[in-house]
């Protein structure tokens, strides 16, 4: 019995050392690998195609833009990852202003219109994220409400407690909605509209994923979200994606190289690939968004949007005003 106990402890200690040693060897062999933070639908397929094309492997961690920014700020330039891939542009602007990014103007960048990229090359837009309504058709039938096609339809009292939106302090998507409304309607009217919308929202979700998940599970009828509707539909949920006819809010979803990268060459190759015609096609095939590169075809699902005017939104301003807008929103509606 004694012998066995000793053996057991020895084995345990041996195991620990082996695993640690393995870890160190594994970690040091990382030249042909890039590490990546980000949130992008269909990323697994996108990354595996990239690996096939270039031989560079990708390790990724799915994080919302707020989380990425918080992490980068806390770490202050410690190399945690090489690339930040997708997310709300306002966080990228904040990261740039905090000196957390490395500028890189890719040779492919000239094909990307000015409004979708940072002039100094700190971030470059990959695709355009559109805000949409994720509507549960079963609930619409049950409540006998027509499927909302416009923003102004959503302030109808019929939708009381049937709309889910994230807290804009946390979710980039929700912040895009907020600035979109404020910039297109003007301050006074904008806040008024947000107030009316607020009456139909039971509470603001604390995670970006909640609105569409709730809509899918039938907890609410409408979830205000970006592009996940298609995936949920594929899973079998009674969901349709509606692009509001009276104004589509959008923001570019950028890619950026993080300060402290341990593999800048690999990171640059990745950015080049994403912005190239090939990469843009792969991206739009796996995630239904409008590509930023001119001449790349728009995914079929978005054909209906093609002719709808995208609202003019000033992202530089949105990024700058973020703190004050969020503060005002908090004082008015944070319940």
């Amino acid at each position, binding site marked *: *019995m*004694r012998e*066995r*106990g*000793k053996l057991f*402890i020895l084995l*345990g*200690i041996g*195991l*620990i050392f082996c*695993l*640690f040693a393995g*870890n160190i060897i594994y*970690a040091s062999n*990382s030249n042909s690998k890039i*590490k990546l933070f980000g*949130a992008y*639908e269909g990323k*697994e397929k996108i990354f595996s195609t990239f690996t096939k094309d270039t031989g560079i492997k990708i*390790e*990724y*961690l*799915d994080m919302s833009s*707020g*989380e990425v*920014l*918080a*992490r980068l*700020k*806390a*770490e*202050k330039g*410690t*190399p*945690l*990852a090489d690339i930040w891939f997708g997310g709300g542009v306002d966080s990228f602007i*904040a990261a740039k202003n905090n000196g957390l990014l490395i500028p890189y103007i890719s040779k492919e960048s000239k094909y990307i219109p000015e409004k979708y990229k940072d002039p100094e090359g700190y971030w470059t837009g990959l695709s355009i994220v559109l805000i949409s309504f994720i509507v549960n058709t079963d*609930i619409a039938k049950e409540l006998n409400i027509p499927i909302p096609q416009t923003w102004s339809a959503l302030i109808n009292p019929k939708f009381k*407690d049937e709309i889910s939106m994230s*807290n804009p*302090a*946390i979710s980039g998507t929700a912040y895009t909605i907020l600035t979109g409304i404020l910039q297109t309607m003007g301050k006074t009217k904008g806040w008024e509209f947000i107030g009316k919308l607020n009456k139909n929202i*039971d*509470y603001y979700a*604390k*995670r970006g*994923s909640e609105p569409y*998940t709730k809509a*899918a*599970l*039938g*907890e*609410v009828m409408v979830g205000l979200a970006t592009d*996940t509707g298609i*995936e*949920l539909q594929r*899973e*079998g*949920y*009674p969901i349709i994606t509606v692009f509001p006819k009276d104004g589509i809010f959008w923001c570019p979803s950028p890619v950026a190289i993080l300060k402290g990268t341990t593999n800048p060459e690999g990171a640059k190759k990745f950015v080049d690939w994403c912005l190239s015609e090939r990469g843009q096609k792969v991206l739009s095939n796996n995630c239904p968004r409008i590509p930023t590169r001119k001449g790349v075809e728009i995914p079929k699902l978005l054909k209906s949007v093609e002719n709808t005017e995208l609202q003019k939104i000033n992202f530089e301003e949105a990024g700058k005003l973020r703190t004050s807008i969020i503060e005002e929103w908090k004082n008015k509606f944070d319940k």
Partner: protein
Amino acid sequence: MTNNNSKTNTKKIFNFKNIEKFLLFFLILTIIVFILWPILAVFYKSLIINGSFNFTCYHALFVKNYKLLLNSLFISCTSTFFAVLLGLIIALYITYLKLPGKLFIFLVLLLTMISPPFVTSLAYIMLFGRRGLITYKLLGLHLNPYGWHGIILMQTISQASIAALIILGILRSIDKKFEQSSMDLGANGLRTLFKVTLPLAKSGIIAAALIVFVRSLADFGTPIIIGGGYKVLATEAYLNVIGLYNLPNASAMSVLLLIPALIAFILYRKMINNSNFYSAKKNSFDNFSINLPHWFTGGIAIITYLFIIFILLKYATIFWGAFAKTWGIDYSFSLKHISKLNINKLGSFFRSIKYSIIAGIAGSIIALILSYIIERKKIYGNNIIDFIVTLPFMIPGIFFGIGYVLAFHSKPLLLTGTGFIVIVNCIYRQLPLGTKAGSSVLSQLNPEMESSARDLGANEFFLFKDIILPNMKSAFLLSFINTFTATMTTIGAVIFLITPSSKIATVEMFDAIKNGNIGTGAVLANLIIFTVLIINLLFTWFLLREKKTKTNYKKSKISYVSTIEPNY
């Protein structure tokens, strides 16, 4: 010959003493670095803004957000009350009722200790949400589960198990002679229960309450998902980090959260020190039971069964979620979610297992050595060591996570970004339970045994190896199981420490759910649940097997429960 022998002996003593000193120094150093230093870093961050000392964060908190503190206290107090009541009822069922299924109920209680985040609350929403299967589709109720009542309900259910396990341990250790005498003197069963049994178990019940209180206070996952618009401190601290990038404010909130937790914790320690239930003997009247009136036992049985049904429903939902075509919509059988498991996802899963095994073994070894030092080596300041070691237990996971980021993101302790820091975080966060388990075993072990061994010529090394270690097995088991389980299901404390190359299963599961693949999330949740179950059972079996010669299985199970008892 004799001469030779004593020579090697003195040599060994000398060596072991040195090793012991080195170990002691090293362990204390790691405790300071991995427990105290991150905590101080959070305090520092909340007090020093732009290089100068100031109370702005706290001032703003007290003036503007004192309601948050009140909300947190309200939720914790209410949840604690109901959870302990429910726990007591379940414990009474197992101890005093002559009804079947006790072992099953006990196993269900242990199962609830394995609760992967997110999926659990998704199951809750699916069953009891606004359009939940049971509340809406079956009963036709129009309930809104989001709000303070939802938090209290969920916390009550999830904390009742731990309360039940603690109270169970205490009820079992009560000397049945007292109850027997009370009955013999003419008191009826109910009177005996309320006048004799419960007062005897009082300290244990209060200890359970304090533990549940602290856990509820630190819980940020439940309010974030079903709190709706209701805000508590733990959740707001988390949101302050990820949403507002306001680390000083988040730190201040965490510190504020620490105050009630600290008070509860100090009360708890007093409780433990003043009570004598450690030394209580195992009862000698195995078949004795007090006679309780039928209405009373009936009530207890109904409540217990409802609880068990609730728990089983939850786990059945998660289980079936992995095989159902569409979570919450189409329940027909499908393997599509399982086929979606690719190398990436499985890689994270195996990494989780690896981390958990390392954390479990290393954490248990550290814990046991520490408990030996605290209990037996009366070194200067071991009270302080004991206090520091127990700190992580009552610190909200988020606080510990923020502390680690703040403490280890710069030289000379540049550790963030490594898998090592994730493991270390799990080890030190779960250390309190391990050391408490070790201490409780040691305090039941009569020091005279060691003295006599010493008198008979055993040196310190043999003393430790032959007397202490064999008796520590149950503590090792408990500590390992706890750390392993916690590491497999953790997210709050490590969410800020994970990097692309140290992604673990819970994070992978969260990703899947976030991207709309709830079914895949459920598959991962099941993988986690079954792995933890299998490892737990294997370890229990492996360590209990050696006890088999001394005692039968049933008895060793009881001793397992009583190790959980007042120490958790």
